[in-house]
C-alpha cells in the first residue's frame, strides 16, 4: 500500500513538474514571441545528415530534442535555453532535466511535441522518421536527423547543430577543444601496442558494437581494436561461441548511467578469455560511451586510460 501511495505521490510530483514546465514554457513563449514577430516569415534552407533539404526559420527559437546526445550538443553550443522539450533520458547538463519531457527516445508523444510548438525537432537516427515527419510536417514542424558513425561524424553533428542554432562560433570553439583533447589521446597511445577489445553493450542477450557504430572508431582512437569491428550493423546481437572464440584482451562494460541496470560483469563465454584472466574488465559510464555527443571525448579519454594506463603515467 505504501508503495502505491509513494507511486501516487510520485505521479503527482511528476504532474506538478510537467505543469510547472508547461507554465514556464508559456511564460517564455510570450516573452520571446514579443520580439521576433516581424521575422516570422524569414526562413533559410539547411540539409540534415540524412541528406534531406529542410526549411527552418532564420533564427531557430524553439527546439525539441528526441535524444540525450542531441540535448547535450544543443547545450554545448549555447542554445540550451531554446530547448522547449526533451526526453526522459536527457539528464545532462542538469538543466536538461527541467525541460518539458516528451516521453522517451523510442516512444515520444507526438501530441506533446506539437503542443510545445517547436520549429525544429532533432532526431538521432533515421529510425521512425517516416511516421514522425508526416504528422509533424502537417504542423509546419521540421524534423532534423543526425546520424554520426564515428567521432568525426559527432564533430560534424556539433557543427551542423551549431549552424542550425546560429551558434557557429561556439560550435567551432567546442570542436577545436574536442579535437585537441582527441589528438592528445591519440598521441599518448600512438606507439602503444594495440589492445583487442570486446565492447559488451549488454550481457544477456549479448549485444556489442558493430561496423556502423561510432564506438568502433572510438576504440581504435583509444589504442585498441574492437574484435567485432567487422560485424554488420551498429549494435548486433552477437553469438556466444563467436564471443568465446574472439579472445579479447580487454572487455569494456558501459554501465551505471541513465539506461541500464545490470551489465555489471563480463558475459559467461568470456570467463576464460585473456581479458578476464588478466582482470582487464572495465566499467565505464555508459553515458560517456553510448551518446554520440561532446562527452564522447570524455569516454575516449577514459577508454584510453584503461587500455593504456602506462601511456598516461607522469
Amino acid at each position, binding site marked *: 500500500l505504501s508503495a502505491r501511495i509513494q507511486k501516487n505521490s510520485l505521479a503527482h510530483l511528476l504532474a506538478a513538474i510537467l505543469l510547472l514546465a508547461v507554465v514556464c514554457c508559456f511564460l517564455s513563449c510570450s516573452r520571446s514571441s514579443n520580439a521576433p514577430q516581424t521575422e516570422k516569415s524569414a526562413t533559410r534552407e539547411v540539409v540534415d545528415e540524412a541528406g534531406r533539404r529542410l526549411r527552418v526559420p532564420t533564427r531557430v527559437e524553439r527546439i525539441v530534442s528526441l535524444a540525450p546526445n542531441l540535448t547535450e550538443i544543443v547545450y554545448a553550443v549555447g542554445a540550451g535555453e531554446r530547448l522547449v522539450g526533451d526526453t526522459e*533520458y536527457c539528464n545532462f547538463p542538469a538543466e536538461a532535466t527541467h525541460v518539458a519531457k516528451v516521453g*522517451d*527516445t*523510442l*516512444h515520444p508523444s507526438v501530441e506533446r511535441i506539437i503542443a510545445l510548438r517547436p520549429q525544429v525537432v532533432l532526431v538521432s537516427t533515421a529510425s521512425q522518421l517516416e511516421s514522425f515527419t508526416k504528422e509533424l510536417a502537417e504542423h509546419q514542424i521540421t524534423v532534423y536527423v543526425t546520424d554520426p558513425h564515428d567521432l568525426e561524424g559527432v564533430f560534424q553533428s556539433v557543427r551542423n547543430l551549431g549552424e542550425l542554432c546560429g551558434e557557429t562560433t561556439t560550435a567551432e570553439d567546442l570542436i577545436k577543444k574536442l579535437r585537441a583533447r582527441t589528438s592528445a589521446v591519440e598521441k599518448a597511445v600512438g606507439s602503444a601496442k594495440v589492445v583487442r577489445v570486446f565492447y559488451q*553493450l*549488454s550481457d*544477456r*542477450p*549479448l*549485444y556489442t558494437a558493430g561496423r556502423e557504430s561510432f564506438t568502433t572508431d572510438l576504440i581504435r582512437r583509444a589504442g585498441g581494436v574492437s574484435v*567485432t569491428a567487422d*560485424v*554488420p*550493423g551498429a549494435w*548486433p*546481437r*552477437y*553469438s*556466444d*561461441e*563467436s564471443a*568465446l*572464440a574472439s*579472445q579479447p584482451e580487454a572487455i569494456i562494460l558501459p554501465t551505471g548511467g541513465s*539506461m*541500464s*541496470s*545490470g*551489465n555489471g560483469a563480463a558475459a559467461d*563465454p568470456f570467463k*576464460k578469455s585473456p581479458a578476464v584472466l588478466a582482470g582487464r574488465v572495465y566499467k565505464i559510464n555508459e553515458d560517456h560511451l553510448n551518446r554520440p555527443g561532446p562527452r564522447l571525448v570524455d569516454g575516449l579519454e577514459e577508454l584510453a586510460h584503461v587500455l593504456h594506463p602506462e601511456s598516461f603515467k607522469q
Partner: protein
Amino acid sequence: MTASIVASQTYAASLKGTRATLRRTLFWCGVLLLLLVAAVLLTALVGSESLPAKESLCALLSGGRATCGLTAEQSAILFEIRLPRILLAAAVGASLASAGAGYQSLLRNPLAEPYLLGISNGAAVGTMVALVFFGSVEWSRPVMAFAGALLASLAVYQLARGRAGASPERMILAGVIVTTFLSSAIVFITTMMDATRVRSFTFWLLGDLSGATSRLLVVAIIVAIAGSLLLTAFARPLNLLMLGERDAFDLGVEVGRVRIVVFLVAGMLVGTSVASSGSVGYVGLVVPHLVRLSLGSDNRITIPAAGLSGALFVVVADTLARTVIAPRELPVGAITALIGAPLFIYLLRRG
C-alpha cells in the same frame, strides 16, 4: 462399470489391438529418437565458429572425456555453448509439441496450441513478473511461468465454455482475447522497464535459446521428459475425450480429473520452456499435425512421437537461427514461425 469397459474396448479395437499399438509406438519412437540423436550430433558440428568435424564428433561420442585433439577453446565452444543450447532446443521442442498434442485432444480442437491460445503469453507474463519482482531468485521464473501458463489456459477454457461445451471456434476466439490481453500486459511491463532490458526482452519474447543457465537447462530436460511421459500415460482417456466430454464420461473417463492433470502437466511444459527460452511459436501446432497426418491420431503414438519430432524441429530451427547471419543471431521463434506459418496454411488447405 462393465458396460464402460466393454465400450472402451470396442473403441480400442477400432484403433487396433493394444499390443500392436505398443509395438508401433516403440518402433516409431525408436526411429525418431535415432533421428534426434543424429540431429544433435550433426548440428553440434555447425555454428558461427568452425570446428574440425572429425575431432568434434570424436569428442562428442566420447562424452567429453577425450579431447580428440580439440583445443581447450574449441571444446569449450562445443561443450559449454553449443551442446547445452542444442539440448535446450530439444527440451523446448519436445515440451511444446507434446503439450500442443495434449491440448488438442483435451480441448478437441485441432488449432489448440500454446502460442495461439495465449498460454505462452501467460507464461511470458509470469516470467516477466518474476524478473521484475524477484529478479535474483532464479527458480521463481519457471514457477511463475507455470502459474501464468496455467492461469491463461484456465481463462481460455472458461471463456470458451458454452452451454454446449467448448466449440473449436469459441476456443480460438477466447485464445485471441487472452493473447491480445496478455500482449498488452507485456507491452505495459516492457514500457515500465529501462531501455537495455527492453531490448533483451524483445529478443527473448521471440524465442531465444542462448540465455538459459545450466540449472534451468537441467530443469527443462527433466520436465520435458517427465511431462511427455505423463501425457502419454493419459493417452487412452485423451483418445476417449476426442469423442466428446459426454461420451468420454459415459465410457468411464473421469473427465474432470483428466482435464486437471493435462492442464497442469501441459502448463508445466509450456511454463518451463517459456521461462528458459521465451515464446517459440507454432511448434505445438505444426508438429502434432504432421505427426497425426503420418502416424494417425491415436494419442498413445501421437503424443510421444510429437514430443520427439518437436525436439527435432526446434534443434534444426535453432541451428538455422544461429548460423544464417553468423556471427550475429536471429531469435529461434522467428525461424519456427517462418517455417510453421506457411506449413500450417498448407495443412489447413489440405483439410
